[in-house]
């Protein structure tokens, strides 16, 4: 929704015509075939279309921009206009195997409530967000005294839709507070590729440009 990462994946198993953004590819890799998926903030349907074609998922989308919704439906993808803060409460419990929120959490009004909703309507939540703990963000603040701006966060503070920034460690603390299980986690570099720095270590928090988590609720 807010980021522009233009590199595409060339990973195993995909035809050249079926390349998607590398960070989206990492999300797609987490999704089991034939499952029910809700992609919140699905944009032009890049991930949703890919999952439908390659994993035969029963996929649905929610997208804020009318243009995005139009483009999705015109491709035959079932998408409706809506936003994560307002429009998740209609969906029944456990309606989906995965609720995906890619690069959108930081733009919601109530990220914690949104995350709780994701795990109410989906058995698992897959969430990615820009990491404010990245060394360059720290550098910008410490040495320039300015809010960070970089290719992944290109918009000035007064115009950015990103209103709730957090670091990887902040996010992990919230998950702990919400009693959630972190099933998988990884940090990505500037181009969206996975970085091998442990899951959510201090090092990952320092060098990871974005973070990607798969979460579930504790049973019972």
């Amino acid at each position, binding site marked *: 929704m807010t980021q522009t990462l233009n590199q595409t994946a060339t990973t195993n198993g995909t035809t050249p015509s079926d390349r998607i953004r590398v960070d989206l590819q990492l999300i797609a890799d987490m999704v089991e075939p034939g499952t029910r998926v809700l992609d919140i903030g699905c944009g032009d349907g890049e991930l949703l279309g890919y999952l439908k074609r390659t994993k035969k998922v*029963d996929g*649905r989308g929610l997208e804020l921009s*009318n243009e995005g*919704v*139009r483009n*999705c*439906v*015109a*491709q*035959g*993808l*079932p*998408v*409706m*206009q*809506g936003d994560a803060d307002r*429009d998740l409460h*209609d*969906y*029944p419990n456990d*309606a989906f195997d995965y609720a995906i929120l890619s690069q959108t959490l930081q733009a919601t009004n109530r990220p914690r409530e949104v995350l709780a909703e994701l795990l109410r309507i989906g058995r698992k939540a897959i969430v990615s967000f820009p990491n404010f703990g990245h060394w360059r963000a720290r550098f910008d603040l410490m040495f320039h005294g300015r809010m960070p701006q970089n290719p992944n966060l290109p918009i000035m503070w007064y115009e950015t839709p990103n209103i709730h920034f957090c670091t990887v460690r902040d996010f992990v603390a919230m998950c702990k507070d919400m009693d959630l299980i972190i099933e998988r986690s990884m940090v990505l570099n500037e181009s969206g590729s996975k970085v091998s720095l442990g899951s959510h270590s201090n090092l990952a928090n320092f060098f990871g440009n974005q973070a990607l988590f798969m979460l579930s609720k504790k049973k019972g």
Partner: protein
Amino acid sequence: MSHTAPLSRRALPGHQIVLGETDKLRLDSGVDFGPFTLAYQTYGALNADKSNAVLVCHALTGDQYVADDVHPITGKEGWWRAIVGPGKIIDTEKYFVICTNVIGGCLGSTGPKETNPETGKPWGLDFPVITVGDMVRAQTMLIDHMGIDSLFAVIGGSMGGMQVLEWCKSYPERVFAAAPIATSYRHSAQNIAFHEVGRQAVMADPDWCGGNYLLEGKKPARGLAVARMTAHITYLSEPALHRKFGRKLQNRGGITYSFDHDFQVESYLRHQGKSFVDRFDANSYLYITRAMDYFDLSVEFDGRLAEAFRGSNTRFCVISFSSDWCFTTAESRRLAHALNAASCNVSCVEIESDKGHDAFLLDEPDFHMVLSGFIEGAAEARGLN
């Protein structure tokens, strides 16, 4: 009948079928009705496994001539030629398209201007009150007769969209894909209010004769024209009216200080009213507006709309237009939310347009792009491509 309609029922092109001879049509009012006639048009060919049928449902003043070259009465093109036809979005080279004149209508289907077999006179106000549910049940009898178990798609705008939703509620297993367009799951208080103005205009016309104008050899043309003028305003938007007419004067240098049609918009409305009475029956207008007023899909579920769609496998595409103040996007979103709550496969799109409610009948490229994508995707899932 020939004393009112320019063409008698027999002279109308297209198909007519008599239904409900043995098993009558049970109306929502409790009346067992039949036999009755449904007039309908078909385009294209039904495939061998009867899986490519598309039912197009018409709006309040529409009819079965959805894609004809020449309408038998108006002489114009069919009302949805932009969408339906060879190579069009609803491609008649690929799909078998059916469109019926609704029961209660006035272009060949049994309605208040046809003859009541018990009296040998026009039904008039003795015609039973019908509902959108009744219209759809009558259509199912035709679809049964055609041997079609499941329709590939049911599509329609405005009252046509109400029929789409009624199909999805009552016969979900018979609808593979549904596109309710510029419509709602219930008629709003404002829409009921406008309809009541229209009905009162008809009934205030002395030539309405308490509904017996056919017997009296009269026609409540002024009342029906006023009803149409009022309704027509609600189908447009303020920006569309302004763009088309502004305050422009009609063939005159200045205002005439009279009640003549000084303004182009007045002239336009008068023309709309006048041409409408040539093709539409006043009592049909009363009955069909009433059917719309009574429409509320949530009422039998105590307002829990989602219950109407529970367990449905139909794929939905709900489309609204930003400047439509008759059937607003807010209403469409309520419908889409209910469909979500019922775990249905739903797309919901608002098309930016300043053309008001009538936008669904007009050349709107974004609308056409969305509908086309939805139908293509559904056809793929149905194995029709």
